């Protein structure tokens, strides 16, 4: 059984900013594995462990330094990684990204493709829908519990109305939520071993992605301008001393809420 996990490198912590000149996310600083993707990696490892066989392959697209993010997922226990990196891929939107990933996945022919819940930088929670359509495979998203038996995946999906249970035959595409598991920390052995695991670097040409379907040329959305968010107005702060409840009541009374 082969499980592919699509992961993303995102700017670390508070360093996230949009470059006003390019109107793209500034990816120059330290990068980290998108935290939501760690849940997908963890789930892949658990499926492999409970099956007693299989291979977990990481797939990412990004600048060459995205290899840093992959290394953490390899240290968690993934077997090998594929990095799609190409200057012409910079600025790819959902459409352009989904083409490159779908082409790379077609090459790998995994039984199961996993995604994390969303990207912490773009807040996007849509990529799997586009990839599943391009691969022509069944999709289950927002999965809070996943089981795999006899070539069928069963996922418990959280939607606005509660929990649905959805089933699909392999090969399938599944996006997991961040409540599905608690990702493991890489062990020292895992960290040391990660460097020796196979990592393949591919260009768009390797994947047969035409240049007009990649990067900004292949994108059908654009960022036009950036602005400051509207202010919520003045915010008051009380540092918890004994009189906090009285202060809250006074505030609510002033706002005519009690």
């Amino acid at each position, binding site marked *: 059984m082969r499980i592919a996990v699509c992961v993303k490198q995102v700017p670390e912590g508070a360093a996230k900013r949009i470059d006003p000149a390019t109107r793209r996310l500034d990816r120059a600083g330290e990068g980290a594995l998108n935290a939501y993707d760690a849940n997908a990696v963890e789930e892949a490892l658990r499926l492999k462990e409970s099956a007693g066989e299989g291979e977990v392959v990481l797939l990412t697209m990004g600048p060459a330094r995205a290899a840093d993010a992959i290394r953490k997922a390899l240290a968690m226990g993934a077997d090998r990684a594929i990095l799609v990196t190409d200057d012409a891929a910079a600025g790819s939107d959902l459409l352009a990204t989904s083409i490159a990933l779908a082409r790379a996945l077609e090459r790998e022919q995994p039984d199961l493709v996993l995604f994390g819940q969303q990207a912490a930088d773009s807040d996007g929670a*849509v990529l799997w829908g586009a990839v599943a359509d391009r691969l022509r495979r069944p999709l289950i998203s927002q999965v809070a519990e996943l089981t795999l038996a006899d070539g069928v995946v069963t996922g418990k999906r959280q939607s*606005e109305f*509660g929990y*649905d249970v959805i*089933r699909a035959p392999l090969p399938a595409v599944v996006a997991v939520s961040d409540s599905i598991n608690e990702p493991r920390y890489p062990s020292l052995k895992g960290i040391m071993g990660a460097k020796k695991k196979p990592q393949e670097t591919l260009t768009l040409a390797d994947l047969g992605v035409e240049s007009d379907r990649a990067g900004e040329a292949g994108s059908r*959305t654009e960022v036009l301008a950036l602005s400051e968010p509207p202010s919520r107005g003045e915010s008051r702060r009380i540092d918890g*001393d004994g009189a*906090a409840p009285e202060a809250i009541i006074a*505030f609510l009374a002033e706002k005519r809420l009690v």
Partner: protein
Amino acid sequence: MKVLVFLEHHEGSLEKRGLAVLSKAASLDGAEVAGAVLGAGVGEIAGTAGRFGARTVHVCDDPALEAPLPQPRVDALAALVAEEGFDTVFFAQSVLASDVAAGLAARLEAGLNWDLTDLLVRDGALVGKRPALADSVYVEVGWKGERRLALFRSGAFDPVEVGGQAQVESFSGRFEDFSLQATMVEQAHEERSGPSIEDAEIVVAGGRGLGKPENFSLVEELARELGGAVGATRAVVDAGWYPYSSQVGQTGKTVSPKLYVACGISGAIQHKVGMQNANVIVAINKDANAPIFEYCDLGVVGDLNEILPRLTELVRQRKAG
């Protein structure tokens, strides 16, 4: 501009958030707006859309569309868009709609912008607004190419009844084999107890910071004294501390009460989108660095175990006095 709005439905009625997007679309200059209702046995509810600005409602009534699964809906919408020549398709963001929109984007090779909170026409072109990077910056986005798709954040617009009548037109779906492979084994049914938090004027909500499930009683008691409803974060719902029907946030309810009291809630973006439209937000959290302190009106750094019982008592006294 020929706009199609995907109208999600649940238990026999059209979802309010879809009608809100429909109202917004109908208010745009030069937009000809239709709705799409996809499901099994949905013919009767489709007409409602006319009151919110749709001139036409396209209905695909097919057993293959009975379960709220995305892929057969991509097939049906792709055919409808091609047949009727729509250049724009709008969705109210939801778990289902996001998957449908993304699949349709790939199928039609159309640009998709998500999480939009506003929309306008500037020099004849459609411009969307989106809060980005945990709402720290606002981004104006556009579309390139002939077709445009957009997902709108829940609560971005209100449904506006304009009182028109829509012509209901049926169309039949043809489905790809792979689109029918995922099947619904068990569909969610909402369990509701007490007043809906969506209609409550006051919501008192609890998160992980309460420490343990039993402490939810502190939240319930304050809610009762204030005459409000109880909300919960996804983290505590997933942990089984509180029922799903009370969940506020991205995959839960969107609330806009007069007062929202957040107890032990860090205020991550997934929660924020569900409650940021509250008039007044009071946050109580022992972590002084919690993101919720960035967007509340009154922030209290302190211990919930001490503050909540005393606060409840003070509300009680005030009512009695």
